[in-house]
Each structure stands twice: as structure tokens, then as C-alpha cells.
């Protein structure tokens, strides 16, 4: 998502209007990809807003997003510092919320996404790493294109 990031920030208004559009409408425009909005127990991170573009999904923790996979196998280039949409479709029963971290190995500042919830368009730059974590690295920065690891936690 990196290349068009500035353009999108400049067009925050357009992006915001996009928020109210049903996701179906966007999926119709680009039918290839919104698997990343399907609830199936996984935690999802997609390259572009609203589950578009390449995506990775996980049932467990991942300390290094430079390698990750989708149902068909390893995703070229992984997802480190590339994700612009996330969806936690986990199964309630403990360890069902997800922390996403600024650094690999669950290091630095993080942000938590509770089970059943999603961030649809991180390119607007509004969602920041809002927990101090181990050392505050990345604290207050936008999480767009800047997440390097994640783990399941007991609560947000």
C-alpha cells in the first residue's frame, strides 16, 4: 500500500466516505480478493484496505511477518510493514484478542484488536501503536505498513 499512501492521506475525505460503503460494493468492484473479510477463525492482515490485495492469515502467533502464508501457501514478500487492513475472526475461549507489534518478536509498542473486530482502512493513518509495550518504540506512530509481528492475548 506504500506507494499510494500519500495520495490516500490527501484524500482522507474520499477515504472516509468509503467507510460507509458496504464492503460488498467494493468487492464487486474488485471481485478477486476479499477473502480477508471472511470469518473462519484466523487473524487476517491484507495489503490493501477492505481486504484487498495479497493477504496472510494465522491461527497462531507469528514473531516475524517477513514470511507468512495464505491458503495457497507462502505469500511472496510476506506482510512485514505492508498491511493496511486487519480482521480478527478468532474463536472465543481465551487467547482470542490479538496484539500487533511495531517490531519483530512482539517487541516495541503495540495495538490490540479484539475478537470479531476489524480495521478496514489503515492507510488513513489514524490507527496508532497505542500501548507502550517493552520499550515504547513506534509508540504513537500509524500502524499502517508498520506491523512486524503479532500474538494472541487474553484481553485487549
Amino acid at each position: 500500500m506504500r506507494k499510494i499512501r500519500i495520495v490516500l492521506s490527501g484524500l482522507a475525505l474520499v477515504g472516509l466516505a468509503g467507510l460507509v460503503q458496504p464492503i460488498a460494493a467494493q468487492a464487486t468492484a474488485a471481485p478477486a480478493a476479499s477473502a480477508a473479510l471472511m470469518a473462519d477463525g484466523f487473524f487476517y492482515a491484507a495489503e490493501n484496505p477492505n481486504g484487498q490485495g495479497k493477504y496472510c492469515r494465522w491461527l497462531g502467533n507469528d514473531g516475524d511477518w517477513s514470511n507468512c502464508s495464505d491458503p495457497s501457501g507462502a505469500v511472496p514478500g510476506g506482510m512485514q510493514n505492508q498491511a493496511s487492513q486487519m480482521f480478527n475472526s478468532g474463536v472465543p475461549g481465551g487467547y482470542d484478542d490479538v496484539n500487533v507489534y511495531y517490531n519483530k518478536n512482539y517487541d516495541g509498542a503495540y495495538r490490540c484488536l479484539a475478537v470479531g473486530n476489524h480495521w478496514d482502512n489503515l492507510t488513513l493513518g489514524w490507527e496508532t501503536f497505542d500501548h507502550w509495550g517493552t520499550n515504547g518504540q513506534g509508540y504513537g506512530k500509524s500502524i499502517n505498513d508498520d506491523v512486524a509481528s503479532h500474538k494472541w492475548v487474553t484481553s485487549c
Partner: protein
Amino acid sequence: MPDFAKRKWRLPLTAGVACLATAATVWTAGAVQRRPETAPAREVTEQEAATLHTAEQLLTARCMGRRGFSYWPVARNPVPEYREFPYVLDDLAYARRYGYGTGLEHRMRELSEAHPNKRHVRALPEPRRLAWLAALHGQGTDEQLRAALPSGGVVARSARSCTSEAERDLYEDLPEWYRVMQFTRSLTSVRRGRVVSDARFAAASARWSRCMRGEGHDHRDPAAIRRELDDPAGDRPSAYWSRLAVAEATCADRSGLGATARELDRAYERRLREEYPDQTGTMRRLRLAAVPRARAVVAGA
């Protein structure tokens, strides 16, 4: 008279905002500071909070049942002894007994792995598994609830999910509930960020760090220990962690870091309540109003 005039003007606006598409909430959340309509409601007690949680879970299970699926309520504190220490481990008895709680975390992981929801969903054939999760979480094509957060950003969830349906039963005004629930949850991270960025916290951390050196441990602040704990390459024996936990708690007391953190946490909580009277007041009001409904749900279970 001005109050009356203001109120008359505010009510249609409130209704209008609620009726509009949720993006309107995004725009107005910062600009329009709506106030709770009645006297400030009290925070629910710990027992009432537990009842609300149980009722949410029971209502979720009922909703899933109506849609033809099994769901087992999730306990609020599956391992009641487990505690989080967001600033510093400041309970010496806890440190002596549980160290950093690694054993308790292990127990929570085991319970989670064995939770009937997880086992059930793992065992379902794929189409049924997808249907289970779609019933619980809803679909991307559903009408969505959205909440603008104080730490930035917009979080969303299906308004048609069983989670949402349960919360509608309990709190009645679902969009409003989702808006303030997510907002106040996010305030916790705002508050903690303010505490650790406060000069008084830094000064107490420096005293704590000196005390730790006296105990034979070199750590800049408690967060540095969490980092070591989380390091996947770490291979310290458990005796090291036990000693470190006791030293951390001893120094939290001796340096005053524990007391400073608790005091700052309370002070920033008060201040944030004043900064966001709409969201924090509405949250309290909705939760308190839901307690009798929650009791009825639990009693009828």
C-alpha cells in the same frame, strides 16, 4: 433558559446522529461533546461487572442456538489468581508465589486450548466452521458498527453478529454501546501511555532501577524485564525469574515506583473522565442500566 434552549437543540441532533450512517459518528465524535442526559451514573461494582459478562455470554450462546449452532460461554477470569501489572509488579506476596505469572499463563493457555468453543470449531467440517464463525462475527457485507477511538482510528464490527445481538439485548442502544465501549477500552491505553510518559514515573523508575542494581539486577525500567521475558531466544532458568520478580516487587515498594504508578493511574483516570464526559458517562449509564436485565438473564439460565 440557555440550558433549556441548548437541550432542545441537542436532542434532535443526538437522534439525527444516531439515525445517520455511522460515518457521521466518526465526524462528530470529536466535535460534538454530548453529555450524559441524567445525573452521572456510578461505576458498576465488580460483582455487577461479572454479572454483565455472564449475561453477555449467555445471550451470545442463545443467539447462536437460535441460528442452529452450539456456543459455550467464556469465563471472565478462567484463572482467577492471574493478575496483570501494567506498570510494575508491585505485590510482593504475588511475586513470591507466582513470580511473573508464567505458570498461571501456562494454565490459561491450556484452558484456552481445551475450551469447548475451540475444540468444537476445530472439529467442524469447513463449511460448518465458516457458518459458525459467520453467525458469531457476522460478515463483511453486513451493516457495520463503527467507533472512533481516542488513540486514533476507527474500529468496526458487524451489527448482525451474535456478539452484537447479545449486546443489543443487554444494552439496548447497540450503536451507542459499541461506540462508548470501544472508546473507553481505548482510553485505558491512552491512560497508561500518559502514566509512563509522566516525569514522575520516569523519576520513580530511575530510583527503582538503582534499587534493582543494589539487588544485583541491571534493568532500566520494568518494561525492560517484560522485553526479556518475551524474548523467544531467552533461556534463563526459572529460579532467575523467581528472584527477579521478588526483587522487582521489593524495589517497587522501596523506590516508591509502585505507589507513584498507582497514584498517576488514578489521577489520569479522573482527568480522562473529565476530558471525555460524554463517552465515559454514557458507558457508565448503559452498564448500570443493563444490570437488572443481566440479572434476569442469569437467573433464567
